């Protein structure tokens, strides 16, 4: 079947891609700038077409715990929210990670802290990549930079979530959520009929009970459990690092940026090149696992590296760890919902030359 071409908002693309990817259930609560996801799903009424359940929960904690329940049954389940709502979900996310369950959580980030602003931001990087909830855990974090990737990453997220039995987050922002671009949609896929063997679907006499829990009172057993999930993260770090490079071959100055900032930096690279400055860009697509190895390789040839983020500087810490002192690393960003312009980024680069 041919792929279908549409002009869509990033939020709408996520919703449509979820239906097409054969997602079993969506639980969510509205919040700007991602309410179009729930609105689109409600209007599309996918239950009629694929049997996908769409439910507006009474709150974000309710939504994430519905996800916990659905995931424990081996179903493909997801939720979406924006920064303050994602903060409310952190307890549930930690439980899901502890119980080793696959699911998709989408954060269409807005500026914080607190209720902050409804404008786009990237100030939830720490929360997404370094925990957020309590305990030693990681989400696998995907950072789309286009409406096409908003659609494509839904299916990818579920593939990865089930491969590792780990929650996956799509870390987007208000700009990509609200922006329209053209998007090629994949054909509809049937919902999965066979459930994974660990799913709690009722105990037949032929096997032991399946237990899904994040509670483990014996410290030695719980240490073993922690070692097991840590080993999983090492596997992800080995196998799942994704990134994209733009004009790095001969670059002397490197931008590191993801999502909306990466788009801005791509333009800044083009502007710099017209002025004879050899700039390049590496765009992490997975924020966890982070493309540290590649950044470390590139760092040796660079006179300066700038981490460009719509935050006070969060990813820059991972960039510095990756660069490991080979060259100078600085941060450039705007905060509180302001998107830097390519010209501003270029000016910052020029100040380093």
């Amino acid at each position, binding site marked *: 079947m041919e792929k279908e071409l549409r002009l869509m908002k990033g939020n709408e693309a996520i919703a449509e891609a979820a239906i097409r990817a054969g997602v079993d259930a969506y639980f969510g609560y509205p919040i700007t700038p991602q309410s179009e996801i729930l609105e689109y799903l409600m209007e599309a009424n996918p239950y009629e077409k694929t049997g996908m359940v769409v439910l507006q929960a009474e709150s974000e904690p309710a939504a994430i715990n519905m996800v916990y329940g659905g995931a424990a049954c081996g179903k493909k389940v997801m939720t979406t929210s924006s920064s303050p709502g994602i903060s409310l979900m952190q307890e549930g996310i930690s439980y899901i990670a502890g119980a080793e369950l696959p699911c998709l959580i989408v954060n269409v980030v807005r500026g914080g802290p607190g209720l902050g602003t*409804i*404008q786009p931001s990237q100030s939830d990087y720490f929360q997404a990549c370094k925990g957020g909830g309590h305990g030693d855990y990681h989400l696998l974090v995907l950072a789309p930079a286009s409406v096409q990737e908003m659609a494509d990453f839904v299916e990818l997220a579920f593939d990865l979530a089930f491969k590792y039995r780990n929650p996956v987050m799509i870390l987007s922002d208000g*700009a990509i959520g*609200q922006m*329209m*671009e*053209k998007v090629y949609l994949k054909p509809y896929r049937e919902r999965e009929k066979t459930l994974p063997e660990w799913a709690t679907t009722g105990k037949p006499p032929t096997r032991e009970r399946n237990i899904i829990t994040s509670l483990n009172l014996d410290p030695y057993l719980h240490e073993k459990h922690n070692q097991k999930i840590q080993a999983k993260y090492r596997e992800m770090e080995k196998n799942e690092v994704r990134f994209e490079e733009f004009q790095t071959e001969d670059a002397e100055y490197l931008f590191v940026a993801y999502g909306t900032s990466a*788009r801005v930096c791509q333009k800044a690279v*083009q502007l710099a090149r017209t002025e004879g400055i050899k700039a390049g860009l590496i765009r992490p697509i997975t924020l966890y696992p982070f493309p540290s190895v590649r950044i470390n390789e590139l760092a040796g040839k660079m006179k300066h590296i700038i981490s460009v983020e719509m935050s006070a500087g969060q990813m820059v810490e991972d960039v510095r760890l990756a660069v490991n002192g080979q060259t100078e690393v600085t941060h450039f960003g705007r905060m509180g919902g302001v998107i830097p*312009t390519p010209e501003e980024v270029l000016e910052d680069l020029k100040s380093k030359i």
Partner: protein
Amino acid sequence: MTEEILIAGFGGQGILSMGKILAYSAMMQDFEVSWMPSYGPEMRGGTANVTVIISTERISSPILRQFDTAIILNQQSLDKFEKSVKSGGMLIYDGNGITRHPERKDIEIYRIDAAEEAARMKSPRTFNMIVLGGYLKIKPLIKIENVIEGLRKSLPERYHKMIPDNEKALIRGMEIIRKLNN
């Protein structure tokens, strides 16, 4: 080829839908497109603006400070964005309600009295299509039939009966746009 366009005016003038129709019709001609609106409190009663980029290449930043073309539909937007047109670029504005007219000498300035014309045509809701027609007269990137197709795709079906009026408005816009400087 890349054309970076800003459309700005009051919320309710059809700014966002004009941008959407432009993006949609460009997509029909196999261009890469992006449509980035201002959203949130700015839209409620105040000014609204949208950035549309049409390109033969992959689009980098959907957020810009400088534009090839600015289509300006009220005084606040003119005051704010006149300086955002690239040198050698183009500014189109509706003279309705404008007291301070554009002053730059390094850009091409066009005037289109679309609000007045829409009132005369007794079709105020096609105001934005008059403007779009004017723009496409100067920059014929997109064929009118693709704009009509774009309208068909982006308008809910209950409004399809208005498409002939919109087509008339597009053509009228092409006739009434005029250049103010050299």
